């Protein structure tokens, strides 16, 4: 059974239909890269999966549970699916440790000691255990993004959504973040990531989704999509790079 089932999803902002019937099934452990031109709806699709945008038509199911737009269902869904943002969005008033603990104690009502143990474990996992007491603005962009990953992992999600998580980083910091993602993939985490890192997509992803004008224009294993594009649009997109 698919872990995430996206069926005929449509989303419009006013008259502007951004998603025009998206179908995508993601198996447990798959790593999906979403590529496509700016404005093709990549971010919007991820935001719909996480319930940050409400869809106009179609359905999204995660681990068999339907995504419904009421608070209770949304929160249940978000416990299953974590999201990492381009701009990190760490909480600036909390320490690194506080960032990773707050959702555990507030949402899951985990005890403080237990939450701290989990936070340290997750920070170690992204190589930042020693930054537990630092504040986000004392960290480099790459470190902040790794904290954001630890923060999402601490909620023990079954899948992670990553929206251009290396695009706001200086080039020399990109690899440290990608290394963490690579490790997650190797451990079997289900990932859906919007990315411009074609080499990374080719190496790590099980399937690549090419989005064009609000539709899944082409989909397939990276070798096929990159080496043997079927449509003129994908050829042009790959040629543009």
């Amino acid at each position, binding site marked *: 059974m698919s872990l995430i089932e996206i069926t005929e999803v449509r989303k419009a902002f006013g008259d502007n239909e951004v998603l025009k019937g998206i179908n995508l099934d993601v198996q447990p452990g798959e790593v999906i890269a979403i590529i496509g031109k700016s404005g093709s709806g990549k971010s919007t699709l991820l935001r719909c999966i996480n319930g940050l945008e409400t869809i106009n038509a179609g359905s999204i199911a995660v681990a068999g549970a339907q995504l419904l737009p009421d608070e209770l269902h949304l929160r249940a869904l978000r416990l299953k699916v974590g999201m990492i943002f381009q701009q990190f969005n760490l909480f600036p008033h909390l320490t690194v440790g506080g960032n990773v603990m707050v959702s555990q104690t507030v949402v899951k009502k985990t005890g403080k000691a237990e939450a701290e143990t989990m936070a340290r474990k997750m920070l170690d996992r992204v190589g930042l255990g020693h930054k537990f007491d630092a504040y986000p603005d004392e960290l480099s962009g790459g470190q902040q993004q790794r904290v954001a990953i630890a923060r999402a992992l601490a*909620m023990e999600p079954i899948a992670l959504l990553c929206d251009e998580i290396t695009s706001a980083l200086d080039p020399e910091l990109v690899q440290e973040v990608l290394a963490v993602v690579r490790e997650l993939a190797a451990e079997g985490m289900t990932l859906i990531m919007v990315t411009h890192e074609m080499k990374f997509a080719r190496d790590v992803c099980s399937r690549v989704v090419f989005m064009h004008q609000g539709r899944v224009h082409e989909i397939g294993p990276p070798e096929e999509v990159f080496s043997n594009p079927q449509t003129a649009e994908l050829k042009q997109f790959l040629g543009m790079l």
Partner: protein
Amino acid sequence: MSDFSTWDILRNLLLAARWTVVLSLVSFIGGGLLGTLLLFMRIGKVSAARAFARYYVELFQGTPLLMQLFLAFFGLGLFGVDVPAWLAAGLALVCWSAAFLMEIWRGCVDAVAKGQWEASASLGMGYLQQMRHIILPQAIRIAVPPTVGFSVQVVKGTALTSIIGFVELSKAGTIVTNATFQPFTVYGFVALIYFALCWPLSKSAQVLERKLNVAHRNH
């Protein structure tokens, strides 16, 4: 020709200044409490409450404080309620401060980046949890300097209550002038006392602003 020494003048003014301070404190604290209530109505999810808070602010920001004082003083009198000047003054200033403080604070809540809402939502927090643990702690930090700054406006605002006969610093200045015929000395002192009240406030608003800005960049 006058029986008033300079010390007499100053003593009378300082005694009246107590009421300026009391009225300022009442207005600021009362306005802060009412403003907090209005703030939660304004940023909450109940649309009737949101509309109420919005109209409230428009009403009090869109009319002069003087009119609000007159209405509190004479208006309630029309309904046969005999309102003493201190009550009308306090009531009008509390309502007026509440409107401005709420607007200031709403701006501070809005100033918290949208990404903070999204990140906390994506971690499964509900609206109240987001507010309490993520948004308000950041908004309060932003709010301190403009809030302290606004307290200066409250102190100055109390001067208007002299018009409905509340004897605070300004009114005392007029009374003492009428008795001594030394307007320059008297109003000179009045101005000095206002300055002594307001300057530390506006100065500390500046200092806080600088300090919190730095604190925000690196703790």
